[in-house]
């Protein structure tokens, strides 16, 4: 009952919570997937006899992922310092 009252009285900021959820989900899932692709690419890179195209693709994924992760870390640190 108290939850219903709280939910309907404007005490809970649904819009704000929605924003937090969408942003968190987007960044977290995106980072994990990119990192996983990078790990996969490294795995492929290590295989003997991998084709040149596959190696080039792997290298691209590793570079893009590294930049994305470094960017997130910098954002995190910048935010921690300046909030």
């Amino acid at each position: 009952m108290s939850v219903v009252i709280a939910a309907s009285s404007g005490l809970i900021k649904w819009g704000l919570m929605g924003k937090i959820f969408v942003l968190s989900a987007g960044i977290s899932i995106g980072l994990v997937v990119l990192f996983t692709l990078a790990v996969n690419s490294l795995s492929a890179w290590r295989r003997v006899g991998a084709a040149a195209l596959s190696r080039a693709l792997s290298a691209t994924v590793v570079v893009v992922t590294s930049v994305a992760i470094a960017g997130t870390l910098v954002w995190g640190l910048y935010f921690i310092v300046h909030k």
Partner: protein
Amino acid sequence: MHNSFLLVLVVLIAVGFDFTNGFHDTANSVAPTIATGAMKPRTAVLMSSTLNIVGAFLSLKVAATIASGIVSQSDIILPVVFAGLTGAIIWNVATWYLGIPSSSSHALIGGVVGAMLAHAGGHAVEWGGLVSKVLAPATASPIFALVIATVATTLSRRLTQKSDNTTKSWGMRTGQIGSSALLSIAHGTNDAQKTMGIVTLALVANGTLGDNAATPKWVVVMCGVGIGLGTYLGGWRIIRTMGQGFTKLSPTQGFASQVTSSVVILSSSHFGMPLSTTHVAAGSILGSGVGTKKRSVRWAVAGRVAIAWLLTLPAAAACGALSFLIERLVGFSFGQVVTGLLTIAFCAVIFKLSRRDRISAENVNDEWGGHTEALEHAKTNETVTRPTATTTEVKA
């Protein structure tokens, strides 16, 4: 002189809370790192401890107080702050003994609310603020983290099905170290500032500092070192529950859960709605268990933790209120000494009890249940040998 004495006691108890905050929350940033073997236990807590201290120095924009918008600021007096802190310490130490990851911030808020209820009654508590700033985020944060970590783990697991295990484990463990470091810095910044806020408030209330004075350097150093030391001593009991109790973590799960925790905490702070690190970290670890093929989560352990979360506010409030009533009964100066000594005695008893089934860096990664089984085995042996000893004693 009288007020200075009260102030010194408040500062001392605040440092005590800061210390318990550190060792209680170590698990949030390092439990998955230790559980998956990404770092050795001692190395992980040393890194986390150092970064917690660094975090404490990074930002000095201290919030008015931890209880701002929750209790009436004009009714706050030093004995209320003192009683609130003792309530939070008692709850933190009790939950540490039981290996339950509960929120130190909620314990502090609960303690202050309870002490305020005993001091000024229900009108001095802003119930709307309590719902919007504490209860709603407390409910939403573990759910957010659980859902996101479940999706992240599922996708990561599916994508790495054909990868070789050596590269996969190495990659994920490396990623875990980075996310664990970020979590530690964020924790030092957020949680050390709670104590800085409390000490600054006490200094202002006592007239030692002006209304808009900056936090003195000694307060920053004291709080940074306090939380860092607590983190280094490591709440191994809680690390064990987070790392082994909820689910058996693989490097893929560990990485997904730690990235989720870091991002959810930073995103929520970005929008001005700081969430409990403990609730987010626990939700992420549970989500990483749900994301596995077998959905392997020990829901009984999760249920026990959820019950403790529900009890945190009322239990810490009850301790805070009781502490304040003792202070008022005995007289505030002497009462603070009495409640301080009672709190120290309680912590000593719990510490003594914890030595019976000690959990440390050496056995923190034992198979879940294995440690308890070993204890039971030891007790059985003791029962078997005891009659012989008694017989010998009787003969003697």
